[in-house]
């Protein structure tokens, strides 16, 4: 028999189309609620189980497993994924897989590197699979969803809607948090942020937990602006003003008010978060909204509960986004007006609405990328809102040095009008907000010698691990030699935690790679400064150092651990103590019910007694 050359196999597709709810099941088919998202293709096992996430449908309340979906079944493939339904758990599994994978892709795209989950760094038993995030779409009967690093999992609950006032859900109907696009995205973001910085989630001040809630909300909300159909619909109904909280009805009601459904105005789904969840709880409204109240500088001094305080940051980010979008869309609207286009709701032509939608979604994607990229320029712990603004400004300047569309100015204004004041900054000018290079404070910028990075080396490559541990040693030595310049204490051990690449655009337009390294220090301090023998907690300090490819330290973003002999003047330590005391006194109820990574690794308050 003659040997025939093998026919080349069909190339795997770049993406896998999967259907999901754009918002949640209550929105029905309106406003482009049924949408297809294209997740990066990967071979899947039943579950779905992929390379970095695995869906496990175990229900702890009922102690049962639900049948896992096989997304490679021909019937599923031909349909472009299972059709949305509430009654088939396999669609639920598909949706959480798709939304989490998409969120992961956003982060990888923005950061320019692949994600490694935080728990992958921990030591554990051999049998544990620590490379994948587990997703439990029906973990328990509870109106809650959370990220639990100890479980290496996202857990989504289900519950019965309020009997008396359940909004668009039927009274007593089962509501699934895993079918809310926003909730899934929000929880996935917690896991993604945790993967970037080891101690970032530690609740060290009122700002830290609030920041994490806000950040997760921001990522979830920005997903809405990538939903083409929904976006076009809202643009047409608002005349392009997508930041309005209501959208117009199909037809204007008569003077006696709306009498049929088509005459009802509706709330703008783009700016709302988790509507079904909120309504099913009997609140008559979405869980949270991107639109805060009018900007005022008092809220920051008044609101302490993490979600309330978080809403200040969410509102600031969306203020910046809507401002940028409005400026950019104005040009289009002016052009259209010149061509005879009428203004106002339901008057825009389909083409114009399309163009505006493109602008809105492009801007949204840029602003979201800005926010995610800023994570690399954040201090390693104890983040304050002001730090985030500085990180945003710095990271964006690295990529877009000239800021032609005034993105940074929009952010600075939005933060300023909400009274967010960065520490140690003389003004709100861009130059003042950018992090200081170390040479400004310490004469010459330290240079790190001996780092070696192989950009094309894969993580599973045998030499990779060796190279990484070699780099860790080099960085540790570098930090020790320059402890003072990086705001580290020379007396305490320094640990070089994560380090990874970040790209920027050089002065000549060339793409450059920097290394972000995280240096950490810790010491035990008494909870009560008066009682040196009493219970203690771990107080951390550290510095994020950005090192150019030639080894020069470009920025050092510091949270100093301070001199143990001068704790009386250590502002950070005192702030953390005050925050812990307020938690212990029950203020705010922040972490009482929610098992975030923050809580899991936080100080064990039950062991710290304020009595005899």
């Amino acid at each position, binding site marked *: 028999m003659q040997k025939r050359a093998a026919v080349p196999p069909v190339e795997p597709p770049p993406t896998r189309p999967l259907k999901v709810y754009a918002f949640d099941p209550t929105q029905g088919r309106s406003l482009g609620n049924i949408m297809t998202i294209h997740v990066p293709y990967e071979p899947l096992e039943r579950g779905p189980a992929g390379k970095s996430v695995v869906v496990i449908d175990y229900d702890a309340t009922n102690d049962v497993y639900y049948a896992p979906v096989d997304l490679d079944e021909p019937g599923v493939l031909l349909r472009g994924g299972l059709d949305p339904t509430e009654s088939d758990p396999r669609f639920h599994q598909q949706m959480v897989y798709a939304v989490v994978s998409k969120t992961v892709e956003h982060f990888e795209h923005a950061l320019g590197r692949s994600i490694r989950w935080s728990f992958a760094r921990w030591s554990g038993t051999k049998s544990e699979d620590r490379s994948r995030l587990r997703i439990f779409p029906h973990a328990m009967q509870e109106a809650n969803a959370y990220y639990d690093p100890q479980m290496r999992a996202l857990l989504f609950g289900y519950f019965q809607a309020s009997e008396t006032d359940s909004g668009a859900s039927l009274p007593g109907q089962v509501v699934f948090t895993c079918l809310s696009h926003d909730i899934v995205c929000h929880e996935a973001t917690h896991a993604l942020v945790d993967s970037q910085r080891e101690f970032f989630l530690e609740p060290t001040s009122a700002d830290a937990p609030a920041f994490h809630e806000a950040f997760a909300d921001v990522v979830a909300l920005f997903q809405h602006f990538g939903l083409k159909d929904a976006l076009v619909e809202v643009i047409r109904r608002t005349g392009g003003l997508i930041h309005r909280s209501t959208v117009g009805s199909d037809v204007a009601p008569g003077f006696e008010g709306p009498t049929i459904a088509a005459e009802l105005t509706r709330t703008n789904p783009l700016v709302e978060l988790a509507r079904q969840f909120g309504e099913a*709880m009997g609140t008559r409204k979405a869980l949270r909204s991107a639109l805060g109240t009018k900007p005022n500088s008092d809220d920051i001094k008044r609101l302490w509960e993490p979600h309330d305080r978080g809403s200040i940051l969410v509102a600031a980010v969306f203020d910046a986004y809507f401002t940028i979008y409005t400026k950019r869309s104005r040009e289009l609207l002016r052009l259209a007006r010149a061509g005879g286009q009428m203004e106002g709701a339901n008057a825009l032509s389909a083409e114009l609405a399309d163009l505006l939608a493109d602008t809105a979604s492009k801007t949204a994607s840029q602003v979201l990328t800005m926010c995610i990229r800023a994570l690399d320029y954040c201090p390693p712990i104890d983040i304050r809102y002001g730090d985030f603004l500085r990180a945003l400004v710095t990271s964006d300047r690295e990529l877009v040095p000239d800021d032609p569309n005034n993105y940074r100015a929009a952010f600075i204004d939005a933060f300023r009008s909400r009274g967010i004041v960065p520490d140690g900054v003389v003004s709100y000018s861009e130059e003042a907000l950018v992090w200081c290079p170390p040479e400004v404070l310490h004469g010459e910028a330290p240079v790190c010698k001996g780092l070696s990075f192989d950009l094309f080396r894969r993580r599973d490559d045998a030499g990779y691990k060796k190279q990484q541990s070699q780099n860790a040693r080099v960085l540790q030595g570098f930090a020790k030699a320059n402890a003072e310049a990086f705001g580290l204490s020379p007396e305490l051990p320094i640990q070089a935690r994560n380090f990874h690449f970040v790209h920027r655009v050089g002065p000549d337009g060339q793409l450059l790679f920097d290394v972000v390294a995280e240096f950490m220090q810790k010491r035990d301090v008494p909870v009560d400064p008066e009682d040196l023998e009493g219970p203690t907690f771990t107080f951390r300090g550290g510095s994020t150092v950005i090192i150019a490819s030639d080894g020069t330290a470009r920025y050092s973003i510091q949270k100093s651990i301070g001199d143990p002999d001068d704790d009386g003047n250590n502002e950070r330590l005192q702030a953390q103590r005050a925050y812990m005391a307020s938690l212990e006194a029950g203020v705010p109820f922040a972490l009482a019910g929610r098992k975030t990574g923050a809580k899991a690794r936080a100080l064990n308050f039950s062991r710290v007694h304020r009595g005899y």
Partner: protein
Amino acid sequence: MAKTPATRAAATRPLGDDELRVRMYRVGFGDCFLVSLPHASDGATHAHVLVDCGVHARGNLGTIRAAVENIAEVTGKRLAVVVATHAHQDHIAGFGECRDLFAEFDVAEVWLPWTWDPANPDAVKIQKKQARLVGKLRQHFAARGLDADSPLAHALANLAPNSRALDLLKSGFNGRAEIRYLTAGDVLRQPASIRGLVARVLGPPVSESFLAQMDPPAGQHYLRMDGNRVTEDGRVEPFAARWRVPARARELAALRLSKTEQERMREAASEPLDALAFTIDQARNNESVVALLSYGDENLLFAGDAEYGNWRWWIENMEASAELLEQVTFFKVAHHGSINATPPLALESMRDDGFAAMVSTQSKPWKSIPRVPLMQRLAEKTGGRVVRSDWIDLPDAVGPSPGTEPPRPARLPRGFSRHEFWMDYVVKI
């Protein structure tokens, strides 16, 4: 059991014109204190202040009615002031249970924490929200079936609403008494026309952080309460049986969890509501009225059930709080001598051998109460002038467990005497 002399009842003798008395009733787990100040008016020799009248349902000795009858007898049914420190059963249940007896009392003033004030929007909001959450919690756990002897069951029992007691108090004993809603920082001079009495209110505060603590936020952690509609077994089956697969099914393969992990998830699924119940319980303790009654050279500190948050606020924010503590001559120990109710910060500021103390306590329903190291430190600090209500032996009552330090003394300290079911502390003014 051989009774020590200290447990034998002393004969009651009439109170002298120049004597001040604090009477602590043994009701079980609860507070009922009667303060009698030498102040002659309208034919009476003393003016009487009642601080709390309540007992926990699971630590009830059944003596509360007898206590109210005794109060009626001692006071001639005239009370200058009734203080209800906070809305826990173990501090107000008696007002409901003995409503008929109290109806015959003549009360001049009722002092309540500002958090009950119907004219204060913040207070109204807090009360409404707390009531709703407590209702849901009780409903939830009633349906789930709760171990009657668990700490959670005890906390819930104590949170139970008591509208009869609240109505009586908030109506000012049916409209006859003047009601004052107290806020930290208030100073009442000659309240209820008691000449020479100055009452300094140290708690509850009205600070932002305090409010946040009292006011469960509308955030999603609490929303689950509304969602968990309670059915008979409290459980919903979200999918039809055909979607279930047995744990050993081959298709699960790598998806199967270990037994330990399944167990862990099941535990986690039921935990958060417990935490909520305890948080509300603690918040309610912190709404306690804390009052320093100054009369002559005596400064009596009644701390209700104030926990750390309440103490901390006034110690840090009130001018001369350290001096106030130094002047204390009598201390009603907060929260039955529990672990987090008397901060070292406060107790250590009081003068060595400078004050006497009373602890209304017993180890039922909470075994960890009173806290032994606190009792020891109180004994040292007061030079032995501290007494506990559970030193009075009553039928079926739990006494201090043997070996508990410090032991019950052979003789009660100077100024104290033990009676049928109460203890007196008397000082000359």
